């Protein structure tokens, strides 16, 4: 609606904001001004948040907190990567941990066996994940809904089996040590460097998500989410689009995994191919809001910090499973759209009210519309007289049609 009202001339009555008749007693001019202040606020908030995020390493009181920050940021990367598939197409994958593990292990193995330099190995690791994802995606995307989830879980279980069983190559349950990329750096410095590397990766992902969100490709993906059959009937190449989204999502997850391998330096199939990691990604994205750019990041900040706190306070007990389970169930049952839409609704509720009852009398409205019509007529020299009369005719009806009538006059003025 706001975009529609933007194009209108400033003389149009404000009732044109919608046929629902939620009239705001303000002209289009102030409305447009509010939009730009809104944008300014948003931009300012974004800059403040980004600055806070980037200054975290210098504010962190000790290396432990800094390393926890790196972990949270790696969660944010995986959740955002997950959202390329889950958010756009609505296909919930519980098995994205498989891509994370594959990225981590292929980076590590490329360094170990081919003695590549760490960041070349990291990029090649992303390519390996991409290549693996193609057949998996082709197979998994032949089914929808429940079967897709089953396949995604099976994929993480099968990779866990393979990487545990093939211990001659992967080290199996003994783990795999990744050589450190910056051997000269001390621990805290190492954390700091990787904090910025993860932040850069996250930035690239957010930019890509933002670009896709505004593109025709993104529109097609969202059409798949809303109604796949109708999208297909309208000519959206659903299979290729879904596959492309799956590949992007899997590759980014793999890159996050590779980065994690370089940072953490010690891999174990149990942790890399853990079904819990996949569940965390889904939980974070859902909690923040899958339809929003920063949803997964927000979810990761909340869930990731909570997980780290739990680990520090209670150690690795079974309690964090229970806490995760309860949080996931609450989100699914009561907030499936996430925090961002919920918060927005709350702001709307306590912010400027959009009352359904019109706050001016029919006589006042008549007077205002007449003035507006006269002004418009004076400006465009008689061209819009028809619009004015159309509005007059409608105004004799009850309140409900007033908005529609005014909207009609507004449209005619545009022509």
């Amino acid at each position, binding site marked *: 609606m706001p975009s529609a009202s933007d194009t209108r001339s400033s003389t149009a009555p404000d009732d044109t904001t919608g046929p629902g008749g939620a009239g705001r007693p303000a002209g289009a001019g102030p409305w447009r001004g509010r939009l730009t202040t809104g944008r300014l606020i948003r931009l300012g908030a974004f800059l403040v948040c980004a600055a806070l995020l980037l200054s975290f390493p210098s504010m962190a009181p000790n290396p432990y907190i800094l390393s926890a920050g790196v972990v949270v940021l790696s969660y944010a990367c995986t959740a955002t990567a997950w959202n390329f598939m889950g958010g756009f197409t609505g296909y919930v994958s*519980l098995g994205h941990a498989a891509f994370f593990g594959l990225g981590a292990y292929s980076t590590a193995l490329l360094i170990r066996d081919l003695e590549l330099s760490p960041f070349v190995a990291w990029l090649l690791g992303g390519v390996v994940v991409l290549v693996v994802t193609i057949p998996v995606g082709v197979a998994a995307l032949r*089914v929808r*809904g429940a*079967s897709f989830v089953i396949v995604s879980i099976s994929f993480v279980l099968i990779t866990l089996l393979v990487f545990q069983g093939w211990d001659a190559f992967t080290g199996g349950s003994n783990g795999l040590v990744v050589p450190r990329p910056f051997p000269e750096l001390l621990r805290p410095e190492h954390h700091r460097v990787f904090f910025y590397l993860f932040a850069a990766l996250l930035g690239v992902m957010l930019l890509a998500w933002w670009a896709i969100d505004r593109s025709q490709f993104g529109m097609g993906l969202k059409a798949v989410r809303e109604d796949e059959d109708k999208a297909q009937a309208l000519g959206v190449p659903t299979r290729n689009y879904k596959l492309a989204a799956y590949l992007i999502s899997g590759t980014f997850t793999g890159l996050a995994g590779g980065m994690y391998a370089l940072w953490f330096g010690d891999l174990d199939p149990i942790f890399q191919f853990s079904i819990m990691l996949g569940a965390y990604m889904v939980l974070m994205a859902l909690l923040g809001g899958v339809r929003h750019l920063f949803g997964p990041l927000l979810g990761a900040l909340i869930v990731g910090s909570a997980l780290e706190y739990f680990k520090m306070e209670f150690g690795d007990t079974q*309690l964090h499973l229970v806490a995760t389970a309860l949080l*996931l*169930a609450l989100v699914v049952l009561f907030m*499936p759209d996430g925090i961002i839409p919920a918060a927005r609704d709350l702001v709307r509720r306590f912010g400027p009210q959009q009352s359904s009852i019109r706050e001016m009398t029919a006589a006042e409205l008549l007077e205002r519309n007449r003035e507006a019509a006269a002004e418009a007529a004076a400006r465009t020299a008689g061209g819009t007289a028809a619009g004015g009369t159309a509005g007059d005719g409608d105004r004799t009806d009850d309140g409900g049609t007033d908005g529609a009538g005014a909207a009609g006059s507004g449209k005619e003025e545009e022509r």
Partner: protein
Amino acid sequence: MNTALLFQSLVLGVLLGGLYALLAAGLTLYFGVMRVVMIAHSAFLILAAYIAWYFNQQTGWDPLFSLLITVPLFFGIGVGMQRLLITRLRPATLTMMSVLLTFAIALFIEGMIGFVWSGTQRRIQLPYSGDSINFLGASVAVVKLMAFALAALSLALLYLLMKKSRFGQALRATIQHKEAAQLVGIRTDRVAGLGFGLGLATAAIGGTALSLDATIYPSLHWHWIGPLMAIIVVGGLGSIPGTAIAAMVLGIGQSLLQVPLGTTWAQTLFYVALFATLMLRPQGFFGGRLAQRF
């Protein structure tokens, strides 16, 4: 591989397949009545096994008697879960969100088992644990035979209930076409709740059967859910005979492959079968329109 060994693993495969078939039938029931993939099924399986173990620890009686507690209890939990949780989800996103919800339930159960009974591995010691019967040259452990008998008996009961009783008829009608079932006067919401309870009762029976023979620990359910879900996809979602056949075939296959490959790699059979099914027949080998009817 000599013939004796082959025959031995074949028999063990049939016994394992029977248990798989019972559990997969439960999963199929949930999917049939609500289009819900119940990830928590195997978590309830392990919970039932733990209850059987605890029952045996406390009373010293045979763990089979714990069925008198677990079956009604799980039936009630199943009905309650459907009525209180699953129906709260939005119909448009029911399939995806129910997966997440049941996943959360599975995690909750795993965490609570670990919290209450600790992560230690448990095993029931019975006077007949070590006994085995010679069956045409193959030696079969009595406990495995009992587990199979329990599974086969429950499957037969389930079959009779579905085919012969009025409730079974209503349940099948709900699975086949919900709206049409409503039109002929079936209260499908109620039937769906009872169907859920019935599905969870199979987990209680399967868990007790499992506890006779297996070492249990809280995270064991991940080893079960993968194969079970592969079975229901291979068999065709919603088809009980299809899942039973797939369970038998894959159970026997796993048992046969264990000899040359070892247990870890034999498990990959399920996933290979799953991906092969997706490439060849995404609706499953016995799925599709016909399989939606029994």
